[in-house]
């Protein structure tokens, strides 16, 4: 470490902090302010005025909001549980695979969907579900199961399930690799000692491997929850929250108020109020969960 005239040092940090001030620090503040206004983005009289808590009250009295909360809970936690299982399974298999070459090759392959634009995968699944020429209906027809053909994304009963199902096989490449990296970081001596004690197979996985990567698993859970609760990408692309709000999620309500309101007049006050609520909810859940899982792990 070197002590230099401090003023010059701060000058070097100016580009970073100017950019952060405009695009990272100011937006949350602006969001919190705008949440207390009726704001349609216009410049005329009546396009922006203070409304107190009215936006929040509106959201909490909107039945769609509660429906959206249920949907986002389902869309977050069902795939999360499944993906924890699949990711750990893949990590264990790759870790125990004898051939390093094949393990490396699979490691490459499971990352491929992560480096393909998310929009591509989503549009391809949209096409699978399409009532006109979708592969799913064609497949059902070919199997003689015509009675089970549906307009999957346009049907109240199936749209949410369709959004869940497209996560198959619930492998999140990076998640598996994080667990794998955790396993590889454990000193060989630990495993050797475990083997000498007769801990092999499932018992070893349960009693040795999993506790050793509990930090990584916690990370996966937290990333999964943060990412999942914010997500509205698939509903936005595939269903616009429909049909009849069957796939509406809070993030999409926010998006539509700001950028795609039915009236064509943006509702920035409502949108930022929703954004603020999501922020508080997600951050609170993350901190709470972090504390809970940590205290459990320390036992």
């Amino acid at each position, binding site marked *: *470490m*070197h*002590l*230099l005239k*401090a003023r010059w040092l701060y000058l*070097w*940090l100016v*580009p*970073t*902090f100017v*950019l*952060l001030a*405009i*695009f*990272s620090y*100011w*937006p*949350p503040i602006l969001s919190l302010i*705008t949440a207390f206004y009726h704001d349609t983005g216009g410049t005329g009289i009546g396009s922006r005025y203070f409304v107190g808590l009215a936006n929040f009250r509106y959201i909490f009295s909107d039945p769609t909001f509660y429906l959206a909360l249920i949907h986002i809970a389902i869309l977050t936690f069902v795939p999360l549980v499944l993906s924890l299982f699949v990711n750990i399974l*893949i990590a264990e*298999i*790759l870790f*125990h*695979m*004898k051939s390093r070459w094949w393990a490396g090759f699979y490691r490459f*392959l499971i*990352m*491929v*969907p992560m*480096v*393909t*634009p998310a*929009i*591509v995968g989503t*549009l*391809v699944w949209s096409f*699978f579900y399409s*009532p*006109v*020429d979708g592969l799913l209906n064609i497949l059902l027809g070919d199997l003689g199961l015509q009675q089970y053909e549906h307009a999957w994304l346009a049907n109240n009963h199936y749209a949410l399930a369709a959004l869940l199902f497209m996560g198959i*096989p619930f492998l999140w490449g*990076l998640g598996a*690799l*994080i667990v794998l*990296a955790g396993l590889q970081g454990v000193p060989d001596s630990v495993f050797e000692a475990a*083997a000498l004690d007769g801990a*092999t197979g*499932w018992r070893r996985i349960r009693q040795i491997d999993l506790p050793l990567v509990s930090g990584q698993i916690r*990370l996966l859970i937290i990333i999964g929850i943060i990412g999942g609760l*914010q997500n509205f*990408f698939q509903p936005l*692309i595939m269903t616009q929250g429909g049909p009849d709000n069957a796939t509406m999620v809070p993030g999409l309500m*926010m998006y539509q108020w700001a*950028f795609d309101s039915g009236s064509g007049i943006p509702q*920035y006050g409502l*949108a*930022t109020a929703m954004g603020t609520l999501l*922020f508080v909810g*997600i951050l609170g859940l*993350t901190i709470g969960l972090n504390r809970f899982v940590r205290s459990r792990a320390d036992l």
Partner: protein
Amino acid sequence: MTSSMATSVVPNKRLGARRWRVGFGEGAKHLVVVFIVLVQLMPLGFMLLISFKSSAQFLQNPFGLTWPFQLQNYTAVWPLIARPLFNSVLYGLTTAVGSVMVASISAFVLARYQFPGRELLYYAIIMLLMIPGIMNLVPAFLIVVRLHLYNTPWAIILPGVAGGQVMAIFLLRTFFGALPEDLFEAARIDGASMFQTYAKIALPLSFPIIFTAGLLQFFAAFNDFIWPSVVITAAQWTPITVAVDQMSGQYGGPIGPEMAAYTIASLPLLVLFALTSRQFIRGMISGAIKM
């Protein structure tokens, strides 16, 4: 590895039973992984397969290979997505280079110099990694409009650099901090300025990690959809992700060219990943774990 050692010391007659208790034989391991990988790659597989089909071939045989390959699907969509593809590469490169440049300077100062408020400033930066980004979408849009950046490339590049530098500072500061002080001390004794120690010593030594940080940024910028779709409506500045979304959903239209467009949109990152998978994977993992 150790489990196989354990099995190898077991007498032969019990090997079968032991293997079962290990869970999987070597073949079963491959079987499970291959099955899961195949399911995971299935959408991309069908995308590629159908991108070579005419409408008639698709109706006749949607699931199998059909001859001849309709390469004209690709030539038909190319004019529509060439410019968006260029835009996306432009956004990817500028955000990657910009954020790494800004980040490396700040990371260097934060790692190698002692000054009042240093830790506070550093935490003010990395706490942004913890903040759910969804809250920023609407206000950032309002700011972009206010700054008259709406519908210009800067609406993508500047927020991209601002956000991207955070992870880069995080990765680079750790790396710069671990470099031996002797190197810098020697340079200073020789009269090197602060900028020289940064440009001549720190940067060359950290090229791999800088490359990794830039790479992550390129992928993120190239993949982004929601933000560009909100701040760009001009066709000439549309990125590829938004362009393929606009092409899709014309039910009843020929599906082959659509799939060809998706394939073209996926190719740049796949090629880049194939060439740099080691750095990419390492960067993703260290970025995630340090969070």
